[in-house]
């Protein structure tokens, strides 16, 4: 392929997530008319907010070509601890929420320490902290489910200017993350580190500090997303947060964030990715599809997204290759 055609293919690939999104909405809308009703669409956003918040954190890590497999476990630990504090200690919900988010941020910072300071491979380090978190949470809850008081669960049904609180929280997180990534020096350095960590070090960027912050931010988002999910579900089960890391990573990748680092955006990318995943589940539900089909369909979509990502990065590296002979590509191709 000549460079011009490669560029065209790249442009098409970059817009595939958006096309997928439109396709899913139209398909489900055609199959189940109730899917496109305003009530159901709002419901879709509410359902997607927890995933979107967690996926925003995952995007930070993916942008540095890392991965955080512990977000589901972080959600579980934070939820288990807040259940304890609410039920056994009688803390009030705002304090519990604050504690939950703080703990999650610290947990993310631990990941950051392992990856940035000790130089562990992110995949292994966060797989380890995933087991650690699950185990700790099991020990805290004695593997029993805890039903939370209404003072906590009513938070999920609060509205602000008519918008459900979970959606408001998700919007604020996405807005802040977007601003941080696009408008601050630190944000732009995250992209540089993800593109080429060695070159970033040579350019004078404090690479460990960037990595450390990125994992801490991911933990923080996991805690916040966990709090939203917890208020919606109303109970801490041993499966709480299970496999959330996959839906978070899938949402980011569906939204165009590259697993190879350096490419992707929280807005619109990850936000749309999260809604897309939720739309598929919601749509299948509306169609009364066999629940065992859900993972098959979601898995298929994730597979396509990852495939597109690797095709795209191969094209990019072909375009970026150093040329020995200038001005020849156009001259030589009739």
């Amino acid at each position, binding site marked *: 392929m*000549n460079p011009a055609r490669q560029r065209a293919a790249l442009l098409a690939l970059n817009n595939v997530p958006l096309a997928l999104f439109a396709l899913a909405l139209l398909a489900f809308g055609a199959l189940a008319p109730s899917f496109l009703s305003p009530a159901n669409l709002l419901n879709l956003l509410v359902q997607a907010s927890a995933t979107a918040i967690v996926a925003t954190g995952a995007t930070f890590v993916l942008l540095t070509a890392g991965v955080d497999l512990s977000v589901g476990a972080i959600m579980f630990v934070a939820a288990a601890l807040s259940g304890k504090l609410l039920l056994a200690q009688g803390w009030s919900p705002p304090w519990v929420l604050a504690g939950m988010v703080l703990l999650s941020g610290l947990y993310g910072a631990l990941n950051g320490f392992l990856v940035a300071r000790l130089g562990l491979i992110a995949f292994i380090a966060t797989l380890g902290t995933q087991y650690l978190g699950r185990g700790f949470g099991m020990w805290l809850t004695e593997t029993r489910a805890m039903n939370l008081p209404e003072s906590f669960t009513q938070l999920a049904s609060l509205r602000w200017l008519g918008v459900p609180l979970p959606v408001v929280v998700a919007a604020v997180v996405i807005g802040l993350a977007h*601003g941080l990534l696009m*408008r*601050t*020096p*630190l944000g*732009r*350095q995250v*992209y*540089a580190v*993800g*593109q*080429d960590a060695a*070159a*970033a070090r*040579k*350019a*004078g*960027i404090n690479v460990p500090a960037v990595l450390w912050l990125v994992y801490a931010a991911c933990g923080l988002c996991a805690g916040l997303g966990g709090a939203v999910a917890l208020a919606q579900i109303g109970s801490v089960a041993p499966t709480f947060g299970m496999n959330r890391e996959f839906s978070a990573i899938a949402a980011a990748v569906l939204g165009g964030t590259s697993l190879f680092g*350096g*490419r992707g955006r929280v807005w619109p990318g990850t936000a749309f990715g999260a809604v897309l995943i939720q739309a598929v589940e919601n749509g299948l539900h509306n169609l009364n599809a066999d629940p065992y089909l859900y993972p098959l369909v979601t898995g298929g979509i994730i597979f396509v997204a990852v495939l597109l990502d690797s095709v795209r990065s191969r094209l*990019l590296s072909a*375009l*970026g*290759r*150093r*040329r*020995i*002979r*200038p*001005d*020849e*590509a156009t001259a*030589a*191709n009739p």
Partner: protein
Amino acid sequence: MSALLQFERITKRFGGVPVLRDITLALPAGVTLGLVGENGAGKSTLMNILGGNLRPDAGHMTWDGQPYAPSGPADAAAAGIAFVHQELNLFPNLSIAENLFLTRFPRRGRWPVIHRRALAAETNRWLREVGLAAPPDTPVERLSAGERQLVEIARALSSEPRLILFDEPTTSLSDRETRQFFTLLERLRARGLTMIYISHTLEDVLRLSDQVAVLRDGALVAHGPREQFDKDRLVTLMVGRRLDRLFPARQPTGGAARQPTAAEGAGAPGQAAPDSGKPEVASVLPQGVPLLEVRGLTRSGVVHDISFELHAGEVLGLFGLMGAGRSELAQILFGLEPFERGSIRVRGRPLASPQPTRCLREGVAFLTENRHEDGLALEASIADNLALVTLRRHARRGTGWLNRVTLADAVRGIREAVRLTPTARDAAPVRTLSGGNQQKVVLGKWLLAQPPVLILDEPTRGIDVGAKFEIYQLIVQRAEAGAGVLLISSELEELIGLCDRILVMRRGEQVDELRRAEFDRERILRAALHERSAA
């Protein structure tokens, strides 16, 4: 004139091999110094020492009268030294402006928020300076190679350095961009900026510099005002002659004699004059089917219309300066990179879309340029590395289990053949070996496969003289056993000492071909150096 930068008896060795010997050089403020030398003459090493990437083994530098011993690139930047490297160090996923100001973004007051208007204005100022008409928020990946080079130059200028170093800045620029770049250099020179200009385009060096320095074999062989030099003198100074190098004698017509079935006489060197070490070519025209036949091989932007034949018993040299496309050609031949037009035939059979596994099956082996990254599994044992390519031959029929006895025999045999240091155990990690022994492991790995076509990319880089000689012997033995060897090297001496024929490449094109009788250092180097046709 006081010296802004002074090198004082700088010496550097890599693994015992001296690459810089006693360099003493003073650069007065406001002067443009043209630095020339063949590949491996020591230019890059000297500049890496200046940039803080390497530390000299002996000697020191002074900067502005003060001792200067940078411990990293940050120190060089802080001193006011900027580099425009041949290889681009840009982040393609970021915009032009972000690449320029990545670690010193203009901020909105005390907030850590980028002041985008100020950023765009600052960037535009530097883009105007280098003559690049692109909006500052353009992602670098949308730019052509030439435009990226201009961004790199803008980045260097935007740090407002006192000394700026250009390493082959024009290789990816078009003629128009080059002319623009030269007027920029004139402006900078008029402003009194001190510059070091490294290039293989000697006309440019002579035109742009106030002083010229020539490096050869790590030593400074000439330094003076530009008026003392012309192109011929520079070429003569650059080539010189190395006397500490020995080459194994080529057995005249050896390959053909021992391999009566192989293509007769190929490029075999014919009758040798006994003591010249440079046998006369008995004008044997290649007969029979060549081992490797390349016709019109083209990949746009990389290599253009390459055609040659490699015959049994022949060592064919491929010379070119850095970035001439030699390694890229080898990668295409071994199926690591695609090509667009042309054909490759191995022993008469066309290789339409070569893949490394297919090439191996057809009998083509490729020793890569970088043994650490591509050639070796550094943590794996010597035995495992040696056996890697031929492992299948030791699988037992039926079960597929490895036959450890034949495997150990093969490893022992090849260790002796390449004369690997006997003190290292088979199980020792390759990492623990010296560079020369590591290279013998890579070569041994391929020799075990006994490939009819052996492509060697810089097989003696960074190894000591003794190991070099032993590798030369292995190459010659292989050719005499009837194989064809394509030898890529930056060392002209090496090619002249070993080859039957030399092809010269420049900018992805084949520009000259010399038979052994015609070998002439100056002619080869002249062909390899860039000519500037349009100016």
